[in-house]
């Protein structure tokens, strides 16, 4: 027992134990997240998936726990299918607009903002995330309302006709901005934009300046460098950001309820189906749709080489 290297207390002994069995420490560290992700998260997702293969008895309104694809077939009924199409179109539009708006901001932050300006950038992006989502959405409802500041400003600068012309566009127009798809779109873009900027900025920051210089050195102008070097290298960030904007739009049920036409999005359909209608299987089937769309989206992105630069 007369070791020349005695342990100095229980902490030291523990360190020794972990040193001799490195896998033990790893196992202890990842056990809680595995339990959380595996059991609580993936487990409930599996339960959801299971529910979507059940159906509801049309007369009694009771869930029949037998395997069937009937519920999925119901998604293809025009009224349900429209909900899916509308939601996917909105999510795609919101994502594209977010990419276009976020890129210059992220590029500036990654390449030019230093020190204090970087702090200002982070604060500017994060600050909106700190205030309540509901407050922001209601604020937008007031901004976009017929009596709101946008209408007032448009009339003030003599662009009232232009606004009316925009609102007169079929499908996306409406009575006022706050009751049209344009309004829903604007609020979605506003609310999710930070989720696009941050991953984009992170991926742009990893592109070394020498890469851009090399492109210029080899004769490329700004546009060519953007297309052949910056964009491909930033693509993982764009895809990461679009996963947020796309999936968050696919699942949201509050924004379209407060701002927009009264037509349903997937989130609202799920909300009403699991509530008053009590049709859990169809709600579950609706909920599976965004998951499938995201899986398809990621597969396509991967095939197109979006993650090659990772």
């Amino acid at each position, binding site marked *: 027992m007369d070791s020349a290297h005695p342990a100095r207390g229980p902490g030291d002994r523990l360190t020794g134990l972990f040193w001799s069995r490195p896998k033990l420490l790893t196992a202890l560290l990842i056990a809680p997240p595995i339990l959380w992700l595996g059991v609580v998260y993936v487990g409930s997702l599996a339960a959801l998936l299971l529910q979507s293969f059940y159906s509801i008895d049309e007369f009694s309104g009771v869930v029949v726990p037998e395997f069937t694809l009937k519920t999925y077939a119901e998604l293809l009924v025009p009224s349900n299918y429209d909900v899916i199409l509308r939601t996917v179109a909105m999510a795609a539009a919101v994502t594209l607009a977010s990419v276009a708006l976020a890129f210059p901001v992220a590029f500036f932050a990654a390449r030019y903002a230093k020190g204090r300006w970087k702090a200002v950038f982070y604060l500017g992006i994060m600050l909106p995330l700190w205030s309540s989502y509901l407050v922001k959405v209601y604020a937008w409802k007031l901004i976009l309302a017929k009596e709101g500041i946008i209408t007032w400003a448009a009339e003030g600068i003599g662009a009232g006709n232009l606004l009316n012309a925009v609102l007169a566009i079929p499908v996306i127009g409406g009575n006022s901005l706050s009751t049209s798809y344009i309004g829903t779109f604007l609020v979605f873009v506003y609310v999710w934009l930070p989720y696009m900027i941050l991953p984009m900025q992170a991926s742009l920051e990893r592109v070394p300046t*020498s890469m851009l210089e*090399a492109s*210029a*050195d*080899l*004769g490329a102008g700004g546009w060519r460098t953007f297309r052949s*070097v910056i964009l*491909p290298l930033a693509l993982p960030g764009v895809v990461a950001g679009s996963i947020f904007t796309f999936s968050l739009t696919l699942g949201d049920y509050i924004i379209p309820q407060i701002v927009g036409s009264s037509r349903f999005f997937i989130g609202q359909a799920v909300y009403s189906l699991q509530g008053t209608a009590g049709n859990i299987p169809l709600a579950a089937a609706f909920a599976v749709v965004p998951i499938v769309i995201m899986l398809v989206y990621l597969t396509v992105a991967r095939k197109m080489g979006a993650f*090659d*630069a990772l």
Partner: protein
Amino acid sequence: MNAAVEFLSVSRHFGQVRAVDRVDMTIAEGSFFAMLGPSGSGKTTCLRLISGFEKPSGGAIRIFGEDMGEVPPNRRHVNTVFQDYALFPHMNVRDNVAYGLMVKGVDRRARHGKAEEMLALVKLDGFGDRKPAQLSGGQRQRVALARALVNEPRVLLLDEPLGALDLKLREAMQDELKALQQRLGITFVFVTHDQGEALSMADRVAVFNEGRIAQIGTPAEVYDRPATRFVADFVGSSNVLPPALTQAFGGPARWASLRPEAIRLSTGPEARAKGRVTALRYLGAGTRVALETGGQEIAVLVPAGVPVPEVGATSGLTWDASALHVMEEA
């Protein structure tokens, strides 16, 4: 001989820092020109001034007689091998090499053919389909070289291109670069902090210190006849003698340099000075003996096979009178 690159009193300031301070130099066409200096001496900034990634704060830069004041990097007929190689990670080796040709609008077949030719030139035939991440450091370096050369630049700029390679590879690449430069006949401008590299490869060396050129000349000139104390110390770690010691060693009362390998240890009557051995450093091919004489440390390189005195022993020193180089600097 024509001037490939001319610096006319060029300065580049970053705020208060004078990274490059009124530099005048002429790089002859077809030469292998090394810019040597410690980090922060302005050599890399000078390279970036030639490529156009930095704009001079003052003075003018001419490339083949044409003023570069309004010419952006993508329109200059110079190409760069970057220190970190800056290969595009999302493109394979062939597309990396062909990038400059793609930018020029050369069609796919022609540019791929040319890229393969260039890869063969740097001995990387058959590597076209690999991604940069699958290559070793030395191979990446060659790709970077091929990518720059494919555009047939009139001046090739190399920014510490061998810095990331291990010793053996570095020596092999030095020979290859030199041979390549002689074969292609284009002007190479090479930035390095390694004096051995500069001396062995370049036709002319510019030694930079604190934003200025301390000396410009052939490797032999810079090595044998350093103009300043800084050059003597930085190039070949020479013994820099203050005026009093120079006088004691038989020269005028001026600063002088005496190469460690020019001194022999001798106890005979031909000894010009005496010193006490304070430290030994075994180098394999020889031993660096540090002696204290006249309150100054003098290093002597004793070749392998010659007996080395012990620490604490006293020894005489001798050298050829011509080895004592008196510097221009006061």
